[in-house]
């Protein structure tokens, strides 16, 4: 009998949130161990669980997987969210990588010095509105299908929805010029597994606050 995947990370979004989303979207139940003290992190290191001394760490299928993209790609392949062939997979990879570039900016924002925060926020919004959102609006416009790739729900759709919701937390009107993305957001949000994950009480984590930033700085010592 296979155990549930077990996620080791801080009690917050960070680099683990995309993994939680993908597992949830695939309807896979998972457990979490939250790192709240430096000792827990040191123990994982000492036990040889962290290949490069870093989290996220996901224990599943007999493996101690680290590196966010390695974990996400594995999950996408295992749960049939990676397209039907190599050509679909490369498109999913392209879309996901673009989305993750934008999300990394958002993820690192709380750790910027106070005097850089406003400029950083403006840059995120500019990139979102002039680079990333137009690219995805165009994809949806060109094929008029419900999903980004191959007329079928994939990792690319999950990743983009996650990014859209994070952007809307920063600026509620960010989709105002992107009607197809608005419709996409509604459609993907209504997929039963996603709908469930979006409800209160799920394992979805909250917007990072100062406490989260402090815990991460304390454990990773930076």
């Amino acid at each position, binding site marked *: 009998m296979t155990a549930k995947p077990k996620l080791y990370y801080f009690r917050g979004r960070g680099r683990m949130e995309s993994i939680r989303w993908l597992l949830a979207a695939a309807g896979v139940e998972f457990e979490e161990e939250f790192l709240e003290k430096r000792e827990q992190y040191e123990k994982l290191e000492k036990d040889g669980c962290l290949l*490069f001394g870093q989290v996220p760490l996901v224990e599943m299928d007999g493996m101690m997987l680290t590196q966010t993209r390695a974990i996400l*790609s594995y999950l996408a392949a295992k749960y049939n969210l990676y397209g039907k062939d190599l050509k679909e997979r*490369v498109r999913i990879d392209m879309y996901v990588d*673009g989305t993750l570039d934008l999300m990394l900016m958002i993820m690192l924002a709380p750790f910027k010095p106070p005097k850089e925060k406003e400029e950083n926020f403006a840059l995120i919004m500019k990139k979102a509105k002039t680079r990333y959102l137009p690219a995805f609006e165009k994809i949806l416009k060109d094929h008029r299908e419900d999903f980004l790739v191959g007329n079928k729900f994939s990792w690319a759709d999950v990743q983009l929805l996650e990014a859209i919701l994070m952007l809307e937390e920063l600026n509620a009107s960010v989709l105002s010029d992107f009607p197809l993305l608005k419709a996409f957001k509604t459609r993907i949000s209504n997929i039963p597994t996603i709908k469930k994950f979006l409800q209160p009480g799920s394992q979805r984590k909250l917007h990072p606050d100062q406490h989260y930033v402090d815990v991460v700085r304390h454990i990773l010592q930076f």
Partner: protein
Amino acid sequence: MAGKPMLHYFNGRGRMESTRWLLAAAGVEFEEKLIESPEDLKKLVNEGSLMFQQVPMVEIDGMKLVQTRAILNYIATKYNLYGKDIKERALIDMYVEGVADLGEMILLLPVAPPGEKDAKLALIKEKTTNRYFPAFEKVLKSHGQDYLVGNKLSRADIHLVELIYYVEELDPSLIANFPLLKALKARVSSLPTVKKFLQPGSQRKPPLDQKTLEQGRKIFK
């Protein structure tokens, strides 16, 4: 008839070099269209060839691929350098992402503000010695095989050996205490396709010099 892959980038290593290494190691001939001015880049953007207005871009099999990882994943799969199943692929991905993290630090070193360069170089050396090289030495030691994953050459070996060359350019002493990494480097370097790529006159790009850096700055602002 499929043409050769066409690589669009500027005349330097940057984010395209790992693609050049992988294609070369796979024995795949490729062509390059060099971006030499802001106008060259603008042309690619205006013709809609760059999904996120960024290079690298590789034209291959009727597609215009962007995003380094997407490109490398495609090439690795197509040329059977990505393991035999999803578990091997997960290990390869994990190793490759670690290589990419250290590679990124080295890549960005030339554009660090002058006052920060020394500190960044020291950090690279520290991470190499205490995090990355020990991790890969341990993997090789744990199974005693010639290659990182599945007892067979994969992209993980190629990317790691490429990285070892860059580390040695910064400080040749860093690999001193890692005998299995030295052996991997020698083994991969002597593969006929890689050996050819390592010779002068190949499409391998040299370290960034001041002139190329200035050119890159103009193009990418």
